[in-house]
């Protein structure tokens, strides 16, 4: 029997963490959802309406395109403009 939803963990850093007021969000989405769907969903949350429509994201520790389809257990991170160095 196929799962109808998937569950992912979303990490927020820097200015995105401050917008959300938290550093981690657990979220369920319909099976087959992409990173773009996840971002749309996140943008309905308080504070995260200010998130860009197409933020940089990482999936399981690698930068990922927004078209990538999610799987249960994925760790997704929203990557604000980086400023190392």
């Amino acid at each position, binding site marked *: 029997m196929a799962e109808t939803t998937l569950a992912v963990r979303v990490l927020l850093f820097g*200015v995105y963490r401050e917008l959300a007021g938290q550093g981690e969000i657990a979220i369920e989405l319909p099976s087959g959802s992409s990173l773009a769907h996840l971002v749309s969903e996140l943008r309905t949350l308080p504070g995260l309406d200010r998130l860009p*429509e197409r933020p*940089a*994201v990482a999936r399981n520790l690698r*930068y990922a395109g927004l078209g990538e389809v999610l799987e249960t257990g994925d760790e997704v991170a929203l990557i*604000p403009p980086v400023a190392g160095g």
Partner: protein
Amino acid sequence: MREPTIVAEITAEPLDGGRLSARLRSMEDGAVVLFEGRVRNSAEGRPVVRLRYEAYAEMAQRVLSEIASEAGSRYEVGAVGAAHRTGSLELGEASVIVVAAAPHRGAAYEASRYVIEAIKQRLPMWKEEHYADGSTAWLGEQPTGGEAL
């Protein structure tokens, strides 16, 4: 060709460029370039009193290792090492150090520059500047594929 030695470290401890350099040099490498990024007392004209670096630690460790390995493959080097500090830093403290050791100086300079440019572009690390007037701001460039807030 030797397989280059690669070191990458994300750490809350103070960075020691001399120690990393000493660890990476060998009798086969005639040129060692050490880059140190340090906390400046101003940013675009505003007096800065402190910085705070926040990392996506697990990914930053992976990305920094990848960057150092890429430099090790692209250039004729014996060793490439990079370390980035996290947490609160005072003025003058090193936020990042990069060491490249090579038989010849061209490769050492180029590998070193490659690493620091890649760090600036894609290391998942964020910098919060604390100004003399008590205000703060998050700094940043956008990594490939995204859109700035």
